[in-house]
């Protein structure tokens, strides 16, 4: 029996939480009814792993089968690990008409040409996103299935999301992607997060944005939940204003969950009380990181409660506006690094 296959299966079962194991195995559908019945999911993982390994021998599963199972699990539970967004640039004329079949063929063939011993698996998700699992090898060794890269892309959009991609693998993947999607270039979108759905929703604008509108302002209705007509809020108008500006900057309702925002400062030190530092020629290098379980929600609350001044500073509102959470701030204003 394949040792690498066993290791892969062991690792995978260890990774999948017990509650998800039954659902994922059922979805995979490779266990016979009898085998399904024989699995007792209340037992500890160690026992389940042993059971599955023996079923594996029975059914003569290969690495291919196990990677299938892994892909099903990751596709249904994408909000783990660290995802980075890439942006495709300068589309060719025929890029809007690239279809699924074309993309799949082109990607596999181009990647196969640049990387030896690469194992590529592609699957389309219900939301029309193409999921690609890449197990990298090189001239000397076969594909390493224990450290696969996952790539997610929706055709006719300029964004690609990747996880577990090393700096060595990045240019190879980039090359294959631009050739398959018929774009000329790809760059870092400077957006990363643990939740794939959040960074995707942010870039695809799949959250409720707020715009100034003549015909209805639903936000003012929210702040007017008058419980007692005898009580008048002193600063009701300014509170409503702040709320409106906060929502215009960040959005309304559920916001995509980002975990951090990083600002790399390359600006000159400015403090009249500290002459030594201010007199220095070089910029004061410093990195500011905001971290939260739901960064955009906390920033919105800062603005609507008055902790952060309104109108919201472009440094903060650039996060949803530009869809980035990594900024390099120079004295000319906030920009983004081109990595």
């Amino acid at each position: 029996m394949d040792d690498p296959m066993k290791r892969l299966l062991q690792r995978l079962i260890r990774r999948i939480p017990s509650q998800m194991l039954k659902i994922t195995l059922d979805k995979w559908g490779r266990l016979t009814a009898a085998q399904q019945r024989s699995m007792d999911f209340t037992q500890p993982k160690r026992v389940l792993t042993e059971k599955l390994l023996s079923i594996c021998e029975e059914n003569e599963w290969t690495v291919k089968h196990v990677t299938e199972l892994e892909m099903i699990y990751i596709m249904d539970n994408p909000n783990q690990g660290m995802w980075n967004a890439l942006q495709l640039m300068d589309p060719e004329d025929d890029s809007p008409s690239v279809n699924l079949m074309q993309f799949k063929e082109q990607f596999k063939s181009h990647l196969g040409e640049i990387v030896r011993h690469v194992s590529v698996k592609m699957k389309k998700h219900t939301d029309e996103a193409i999921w690609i699992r890449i197990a990298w090898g090189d001239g000397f060794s076969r594909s390493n299935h224990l450290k696969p890269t996952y790539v997610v892309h929706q055709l006719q959009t300029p964004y690609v999301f990747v996880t577990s991609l090393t700096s060595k693998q990045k240019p190879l993947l980039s090359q294959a992607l631009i050739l398959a999607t018929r774009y000329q270039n790809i760059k870092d979108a400077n957006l990363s997060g643990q939740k794939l759905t959040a960074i995707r929703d942010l870039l695809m604008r799949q959250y409720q944005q707020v715009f100034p509108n003549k015909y209805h302002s639903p936000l003012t209705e929210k702040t007017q939940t008058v419980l007692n007509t005898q009580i008048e809020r002193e600063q009701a108008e300014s509170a409503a204003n702040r709320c409106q500006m906060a929502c215009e900057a960040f959005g309304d309702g559920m916001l995509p969950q980002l975990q951090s925002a990083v600002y790399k400062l390359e600006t000159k030190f400015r403090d009249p009380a500290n002459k030594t530092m201010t007199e220095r020629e070089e910029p004061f290098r410093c990195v500011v990181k905001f971290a939260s379980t739901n960064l955009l929600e906390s920033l919105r609350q800062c603005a609507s409660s008055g902790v952060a001044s309104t109108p919201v500073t472009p440094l903060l509102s650039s996060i949803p506006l530009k869809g980035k959470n990594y900024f390099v701030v120079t004295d000319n204003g906030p920009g983004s690094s081109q990595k």
Partner: protein
Amino acid sequence: MSAKGVLGHLSLLEVQARSLKTQPQQQQSRVKELKVKVEELITQRDQLRAEIQTHQTLQKLRTSMDKQCTDEEDEEMNEDSENSQFLRLMARHTQLKDLLHAHHLIGGYDIIKTRQGKGVCVSLATAYEGTYLDMFNLEIDLKPTLRICRHNIPPFIPLNSIAEQSNMQTDIRAFLDTLSQHLNAFAGRKHQLKLVKELHKSVEVMESNVLCSVLVLMFTLPREKTAVLCMLDYTDHTRCLPTRVSFESEDKKLPESPQWKKNYNLLMETPVHKALITMKKMGNIA
């Protein structure tokens, strides 16, 4: 008891005497109050009368303006007085406001000023077959050049190239019209896909994409129970109907049969969810 009674009576009389002293003053102040009230009411009445007068003049001006618009005559110059010019301006203002409101009601785009006139916000409504769908918005900075600073248009609509090609800087109407075309067509195609999934469970959607420019459906033939693959390409993103329809099946002669030629025409000329209804009625598909 009797002492209380007498003392009580005395204090009552005292109070009465006191109140009698102040009463005439009270009466005087009351009269003053009422006189002031009368003045206020007279001023209010005069104000209301003036407003009614202005309103009636405006109505007359509006009617003559609306008539002039349809007759395409030159405007008459009545009195050159400041007052009449101002009233004419007000009438024109109400005319424009009504026009904008009508434009909004028919699903055209709304535009409002933002940030004290430094920018505008355009709202484009989309609709298909009488159903209002999504609303898209653009915030545009006016100076130094027109620049789109914020929007909720999905990234697969080529906003920047539309702006360039329709010369947004010089002809914003052309830009908004083209953008509205793209958005309405996209919303229409998306809505058709939604209806196909809801109304035609026997037809399987094999492939589609976020732009809804590609649709691959699988039909089942009612009698033979075999499958026919149908590919719809919507390469013109400003239209809701496909630019190309093709069929694939094991029976190579099928696409040439008169039945399927009819199906081809249906799919090219009618929205897909409606075409499928007709195809089912004709017994061509299950």
